[in-house]
């Protein structure tokens, strides 16, 4: 510890260089921070307690195919299933969303009377719930969505259908809060059924069933039981946890896991390069001084520790500043991409991510200084004193 002031003095000796190095490291570490936070948000975030009990059943081949709606009653009989709701992705177009992507939000048709039995984490005043069930053309929106697009109770929302080519005029009857922070609009699936009937079709299909299990531990067992139930029928199903279901959409963007990891590797490598380069320059300039220190009785270990300490200090400072910027950037990415990639709505600097990154910055500092520090510590006094640059 008595060397701490020496280390600080050394780090401050060439202020401009230290400042440039710290800024450079801060930028790279901030980037690494955002990327690791993304990875964490997408792959490592545990589902909230309620979501962990939900699973989604869909057509085995693709989400674009429907399943007979009577599957709902069969699924409800599987032991451990508490509630089932049929949901249908409606898509369609809100205002001019094809020109302005920010107007996009997920829209589902669902069994209104069962919706809140399954999504137990959605909370809404009882009278709003009643209004929603009463009004056939009513809809509910999540508070996240209502805040973003400024929807109020009683507002009209017109959606021009495309999968189901008809226009619906919905009225906002309720705004629900959810612990998942998701964006969604739900309306009565009877509307679709009636439209199909008016065209002489008696098809009654559901795009997905969302199933609530009695406990998270039973989700794998129930998923298997549901799929076995329909394995030999004409329409086989695939059931997975709601979280896994959401992740399967991410595969559409590309191999996100590999891309994130390889960029992280490239960034870390760059950081080590920058830090090593600076430390090498800075030690080289001080060769003679180190010779003098040795004549004064500083041991090899002391010199080694001094150099490593200086490097770690600079990296740690860079890391700390980088993480501050990263926290800000996370908010930006969340706002820009949260509606595109649902998992990123949880993006933030979690304590585990913070700890990992501070660890990485110290590691980078020590790693990058090992070779110059070793060389400096090993150099014979005479050649150090004779050294001219």
């Amino acid at each position, binding site marked *: 510890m008595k060397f701490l002031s020496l280390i600080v003095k050394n780090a401050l000796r060439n202020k401009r260089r230290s400042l440039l190095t710290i800024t450079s490291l801060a930028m790279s570490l901030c980037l690494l921070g955002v990327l690791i936070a993304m990875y964490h948000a997408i792959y490592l975030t545990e589902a909230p307690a309620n979501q962990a009990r939900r699973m989604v059943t869909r057509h085995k081949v693709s989400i674009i195919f429907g399943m007979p709606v009577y599957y709902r009653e069969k699924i409800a009989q599987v032991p451990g299933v508490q509630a089932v709701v049929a949901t249908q992705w409606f898509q369609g177009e809100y205002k001019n969303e094809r020109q302005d992507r920010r107007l996009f939000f997920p829209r589902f048709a669902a069994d209104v009377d069962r919706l809140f039995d399954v999504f137990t984490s959605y909370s809404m005043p009882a009278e709003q719930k009643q209004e929603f069930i009463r009004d056939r053309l009513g809809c509910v929106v999540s508070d996240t969505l209502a805040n973003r697009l400024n929807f109020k109770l009683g507002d009209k929302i017109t959606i021009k259908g495309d999968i189901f080519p008809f226009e619906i005029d919905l009225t906002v009857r309720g705004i629900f809060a959810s612990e998942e922070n998701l964006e969604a609009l739900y309306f009565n699936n009877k509307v679709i059924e009636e439209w199909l009937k008016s065209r002489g079709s008696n098809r009654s299909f559901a795009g997905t069933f969302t199933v609530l299990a009695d406990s998270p531990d039973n989700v794998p067992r129930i998923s298997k039981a549901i799929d076995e139930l329909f394995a030999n029928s004409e329409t086989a199903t695939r059931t997975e946890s709601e979280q896994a279901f959401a992740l399967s959409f991410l595969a*559409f963007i590309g*191999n996100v896991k590999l891309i994130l990891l390889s960029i992280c590797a490239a960034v870390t490598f760059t950081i080590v*390069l920058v830090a090593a380069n600076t430390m090498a320059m800075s030690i080289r300039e001080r060769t003679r001084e180190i010779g003098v220190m040795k004549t004064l009785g500083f041991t090899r270990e002391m010199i080694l520790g001094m150099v490593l300490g200086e490097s770690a200090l600079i990296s740690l400072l860079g890391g700390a500043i980088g993480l501050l910027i990263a926290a800000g950037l996370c908010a930006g990415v969340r706002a820009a991409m949260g509606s595109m990639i649902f998992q990123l709505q949880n993006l933030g600097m979690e304590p585990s991510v913070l700890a990992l990154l501070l660890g990485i910055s110290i590691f980078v500092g020590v790693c990058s200084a090992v070779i110059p520090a070793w060389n400096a510590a090993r150099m014979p006094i005479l050649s150090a004193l004779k050294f001219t640059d």
Partner: protein
Amino acid sequence: MAIPIAYNIRNLVVRRTTTIMTALGIALTVAVLAAALAVGAGLAKAFRATGHPNHLLLLRKGSTSELISSVPIPVFKERIKLRNGVAKSAKGEPMASPETILVVSLPSVEAPEGMNLTLRALGQVGLEMREDCRIIDGRWFQPGRREIVVGSAVAKRYPDAQIGKKITFGRGQWDVVGVFDSEQMARNSEIWGDFDQISGDFNRLETASSVLVRADDEVALEALKNELNTDVQLQVEIMTEKAYYAAQTDSADPLKFLGIFVAVIMAIGSCFAAMNTMYAAVARRSKEIGTLRILGFSKGSILLSFFVESILIAALGGLLGLLLVLPLNGVTTGVGSNLTFAEIGFELKITPPIAAAGMAFALFMGALGGLLPAGSAARKEILTALRDV
């Protein structure tokens, strides 16, 4: 008079460790940028090149994708097939092809749990209209048989889509009998089979997803488009086949967004690193700068010389970066199309404009990083510079 560039090159060689380290930092930045742009360029190439100039694609009114569109077969027979201006095949048949789009799920190299692929059911006319597609292995499917052919991008990435193997969808198994390839790359990501056979399996004999029509020539194309548009009973959305595919190019936007975001932040870090290196170079060569001034080189030529040196490092970095990313050229990968909900295979392309953009990016970093240090070199007082140790 300008200081010879050889002076800078020799300097870089003498300080090769620092030079290479700084250049490597820039190289990785350029590599990330080029890779992101290569994804965009590859996908754009696949889609922009697809579509016959005289082809019109007819979808149901309001739909943007073949997947959610439907056109009744009677409408096709009565109101589309026999119009004037529809080109005739060698056998004298009208070149208008009703086609049905479905999705099948197959395990791919990257996604063993299965990726969605487009399955297109079409008749012999449909095959004739796609002269660009050649069979490169096996043969075409025969009408009336449960046979399918797969695009070359499918054959490359899906172990099950090989000649002699069977694929299960609809009501049973289908034999893979051929692999086709086309310059119009988006086609290579599809699986094709006989219209009647496949539609029968899915109970879809009464409707098609879309109709592809060839006009005699460009004039006839416009006339046909107007005529179909004014037919109120038809209720179709009409676009050129080329425009339909071009609209899918933005499927790669999330990946491109991520790549550019990363590259820009890395670039700021690399800029500071380059600045650091150049400041160190200036500091170490104080005496040299003084000597050069005494010899009669002006402040301007000193400034230029150091600036050029920074640009040289950046150019080396840019070159290294492009070399790093070059192996990606031609690698086949896939993303989910935003319109068809199925995977589109494409080749990453490091095009000359991308290489130029990467190089320009590198030089820009070098210029920004070199400007201030070069300025400080030029401002040095001759006497103090000479006295510097």
